[in-house]
C-alpha cells in the first residue's frame, strides 16, 4: 500500500489558489464603498435636501452657511422643528413641502414659529392660508433681475430663475415682489408683518448645488438664509403625517423572539441547502460510444422525395418492389420482366392485362392523393395474387 494520491486540495492549497480572487474582491469592495461615499447614493431624494450632495440637493449652501458661523439645524418633523426653534432666539426657518406631507394647519403652524420664515415653492393651499394675496404664477427659466427695493437683493442683482414663480394678485403694501415683474411673476415675494417676516420663494433652483455658483445665486442665498445666527432647515417627512405616531410597526407588536426565530429558520434552510447540495466527490468521466441510427439514409431519402414531390419516382420504387415480390410469389426469377409477370398474374386473378399494365407501368400520379390510392392498389394486388396462389 503506497501513499495514496489525494485529489481534494487541502484547505491551505485552496486558500492559496483563491488568494488572488479574495484580494481582488476586497479591493473592488473597497473601491465601491469609497466611490459611494464620494459620489453619494440613491438617485432619487427630496429636492433642496441640505444633506444631499446631488445636483438637486443643497449641501453646498448648508456647508457654506455653517462655515460662516450660522448654526444650521436640519429637521424632518414639525415637532423637532418646534423644539429647535424654541431653544434659540432670533432664527430663520426654511421649509418646503414638495411631497405634500403637511396639512394646511401644519403649514400655518410652521410659518408662525420663527422670526423669519422662508417657504420654498408654496402650494395653493399654503398660499391661501398664509398669504391670500399671493398666487402661483407660471414656470420660469433663464435669469431674472432683482429690480426691487428689498434689502435682501442689494448685492444680488441677477439670480437663476425657476422652477416656479409667484404673483401678487391684490395690492398690499407689505408684499414686495422681487426678481421678476407683475406680468412674468416674481421669484421672491417678501411679506413683512412687523414682528415676523414671511418670504415666499419661487426661484428655488438658485439654492441647488448645481446652480449655487451661477449668477449671483450664492450672494442671494447666503444673505437670505444667513439673516440670523440660527437656521432651521425643515424638510417635512412621513413623521409629519397625522396619525403616524399611533401606528405600531410589526417589530413592536410581535414578541421579541419572532425576529431571531425568523433568522434562525433562514439559517436552518441555508444549512439544509448546504447539507443536501454538497456533492459526494467529483464525477467519473465516461466515454460514450457513437450512436448511429441505421435507417437514417432511408428516412433522409424519403424526406427528399417528399420535398421535391418526386411522386413518379416513389411510385416506381413501390412498383419495382411489388413486381419483385409478385415474381417470387409466382415462382419466377427475380429478373423476370414486367410483361412476363403481368401475363402470369392476369389469369390468376382474372383481371385484364391492360388494367394491370396501367397500374404497374403506365399511370403517373399528378397529386399525393393519387399516389396514396395507387400505392394501396399495389398492396391490394399483392394480396389478391397471394390469395389466388395460396388460398387459406
Amino acid at each position, binding site marked *: 500500500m503506497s501513499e495514496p494520491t*489525494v485529489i481534494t486540495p487541502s484547505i491551505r492549497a485552496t486558500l492559496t489558489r483563491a488568494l488572488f480572487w479574495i484580494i481582488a474582491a476586497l479591493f473592488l469592495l473597497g473601491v465601491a464603498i469609497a466611490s459611494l461615499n464620494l459620489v453619494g447614493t440613491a438617485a432619487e431624494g427630496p429636492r433642496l435636501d441640505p444633506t444631499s450632495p446631488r445636483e438637486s440637493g443643497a449641501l453646498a449652501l448648508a456647508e457654506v452657511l455653517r462655515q460662516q458661523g450660522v448654526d444650521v439645524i436640519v429637521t424632518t418633523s414639525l415637532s423637532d422643528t418646534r423644539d429647535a426653534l424654541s431653544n434659540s432666539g432670533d432664527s430663520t426657518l426654511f421649509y418646503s413641502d414638495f411631497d405634500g406631507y403637511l396639512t394646511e394647519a401644519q403649514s400655518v403652524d410652521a410659518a408662525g414659529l420663527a422670526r423669519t420664515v422662508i417657504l420654498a415653492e408654496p402650494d395653493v393651499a399654503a398660499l391661501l392660508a398664509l398669504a391670500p394675496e399671493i398666487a402661483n404664477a407660471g414656470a420660469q427659466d433663464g435669469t431674472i433681475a432683482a429690480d426691487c427695493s428689498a434689502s435682501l437683493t442689494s448685492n444680488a442683482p441677477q439670480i437663476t430663475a425657476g422652477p416656479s414663480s409667484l404673483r401678487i394678485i391684490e395690492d398690499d403694501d407689505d408684499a414686495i415682489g422681487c426678481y421678476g415683474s407683475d406680468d412674468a411673476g416674481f421669484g421672491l415675494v417678501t411679506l413683512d408683518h412687523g414682528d415676523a417676516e414671511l418670504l415666499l420663494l419661487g426661484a428655488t433652483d438658485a439654492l441647488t448645488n448645481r446652480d449655487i455658483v451661477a449668477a449671483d445665486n450664492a450672494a442671494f442665498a447666503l444673505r437670505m438664509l444667513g439673516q440670523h445666527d440660527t437656521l432651521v432647515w425643515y424638510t417635512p417627512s412621513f413623521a409629519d403625517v397625522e396619525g403616524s405616531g399611533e401606528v405600531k410597526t410589526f417589530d413592536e407588536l410581535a414578541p421579541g423572539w419572532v425576529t431571531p426565530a425568523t433568522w434562525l429558520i433562514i439559517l436552518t434552510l441555508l444549512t439544509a441547502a448546504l447539507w443536501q447540495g454538497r456533492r459526494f*466527490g467529483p464525477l*467519473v468521466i465516461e466515454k460514450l*460510444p457513437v450512436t*448511429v*441510427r441505421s435507417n437514417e439514409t432511408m428516412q433522409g431519402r424519403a424526406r427528399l422525395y*417528399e420535398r421535391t414531390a418526386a411522386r413518379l419516382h416513389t411510385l416506381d420504387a*413501390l412498383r419495382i418492389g411489388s413486381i419483385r415480390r409478385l415474381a417470387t410469389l409466382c415462382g419466377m426469377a427475380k429478373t423476370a420482366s414486367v410483361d412476363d409477370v403481368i401475363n402470369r398474374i392476369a389469369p390468376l386473378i382474372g383481371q385484364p392485362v391492360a388494367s394491370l399494365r396501367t397500374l404497374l407501368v403506365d399511370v403517373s400520379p399528378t397529386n399525393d392523393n393519387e399516389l*396514396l390510392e395507387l400505392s394501396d392498389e399495389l*398492396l391490394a394486388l399483392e394480396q389478391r395474387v397471394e390469395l389466388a396462389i395460396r388460398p387459406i
Partner: protein
Amino acid sequence: MALSGWFVALVALGIVPIVITGEPIVLLLWLIFVIALGLIDMAFAVSVRRLRFERNSPDRLRLGETTSAQLLITNPSRRRLRAIVRDGWQPSAGAHTNRVRLSVPAHERRELVTVLTPLRRGTREAAHVTVRSYGPLRLIARQTTVAVSGSFTVLPPFNSRKHLPSRLARLRELDGATSVMIRGQGTEFDSLRDYVRGDDVRSIDWRATARRSELVVRTWRPERDRRVVIVVDSGRTSAARIEDEPRIDTAFEAALLLAALASSAGDHVDFIIYDRRVRARVQGARGPDLLSKMVNGMAPVQPELIEMDWSAVPSLVRQATSQRALVVLATSAESPGASHGLLAVLPQLTTKHTVVVASVTDPSILDATRDRSTRDAVYQAGAAERALLDQSRVATAINQLGASVVSQRPSELPLALADHYIALKAAGKL
C-alpha cells in the same frame, strides 16, 4: 467539509432557547455554540488523507453478468473511522449502490464490496474513492477524494452460444461419429468399424470384410484442418444500431459462434478486426484458448467513424494463411456507393478463397415498405423499397464476383452464418 442532517437539526433546535428567553442575542450565542461544537466534532474525525486503500477488482466478465469489486480500507489512526464511502466507478460499470456506511476501528481494515452489473462492453474503470469521515457526534464531516484506480474488462456477451449445442450436433452428423454417414465430396476416410444394422450398405468395405469374418464398414468424416479467416469491419458503417444492437456487436456474436463451431470441427480460425489499422488479431489459437483470445481482442474495440480500407484486406488474409480458406467478411452490404471498396477487392479474394459476406439487415426497412397509411408513410415506403433494391443489387454484384452473401436481422445472423458454414462444410467447399 460536509454538513450532516444532525448539524441542520442542531441549528433548528436553537428555536427552543430563543423562544424561551426571547432575546435576539441568544441567536448569536446559539450559532457560535453550534459552529464551535461542529468544528470540535470535525477535529475528532479521522483524516481521510491518512487512510490506505487497496482494490481487488475482478479481472474480466461477460456483459450481462454480475460481479463484485472489493475495496479494502485500512485505518492506521488511533480513532475509529465513521464514514460514508463512495466508490467512484463509471456509470456504465453499473454499481448497484455507491454510498456505503462504514465503521473501521483504529488500526483495523474493512472490506467494502460494490456489486457491479456492467452496461457496456469494454474496459470499465474506477477513478477514485470519496470518503466522508464523521466525528463522534456526526455533525460536520471531513470529505476527501482519493485517486484509487481500478478497472476490469467486460467481454462481449456471446449470447448466441445457446445455439452452439444444436449446431455442434449437426456438425457431428457430418462426422464419422454417427453411423448415418453420407460418403461424398468434402469427406475424407476416417476409420473402419463393424457393421451395425442401419448402416448404408454402400459403405461396406468388402476388402476389409474379406480379411475378417464380420462385415466391416468404412466411416467418413468431413475434411479437417481447413482455414477460416474472419474479418470484422470496424469502420463507420458498423457503428449503426439495428434493433438496439450496433452492427459490430452482431458481427462479434456471429464471429464467436462461427469460431466455436469451426474450431470444434477441427478447422483453424484466424480473426481480424480492421478499419484502417488492425484493431485486434487472433492467429494460431485453438480450442478454448481461441474463444478467450477472441473475446479479449473484441472487448475494447468500438467502431471508428472512418471509412473501411478494403484494399488492405487481401494482404491481411494472405498474412493469415497461404492456403485456400473460407474468408468471412462481416460488414454491411447495403448501398452500391458504400460497398464500392468491398466490390473492388472481392475478385482478388474469390480467385483463391471461398468468400462469404455476412451483413446485418434492418428489419425496420422491411416494415416500412408495408406501411402505406399516410402521405409520409408512402414516401417512406418508396424510399424503403429503394433501399431494398439497393441491397439486392449489392448482393447480386457480390454473387457475380463469386462470393456469397449471408444477410439476416441481428438476432438471426449468427445462426445463419453458422448454418452457411455447415452447409459449405457438408458440400466440401472449404
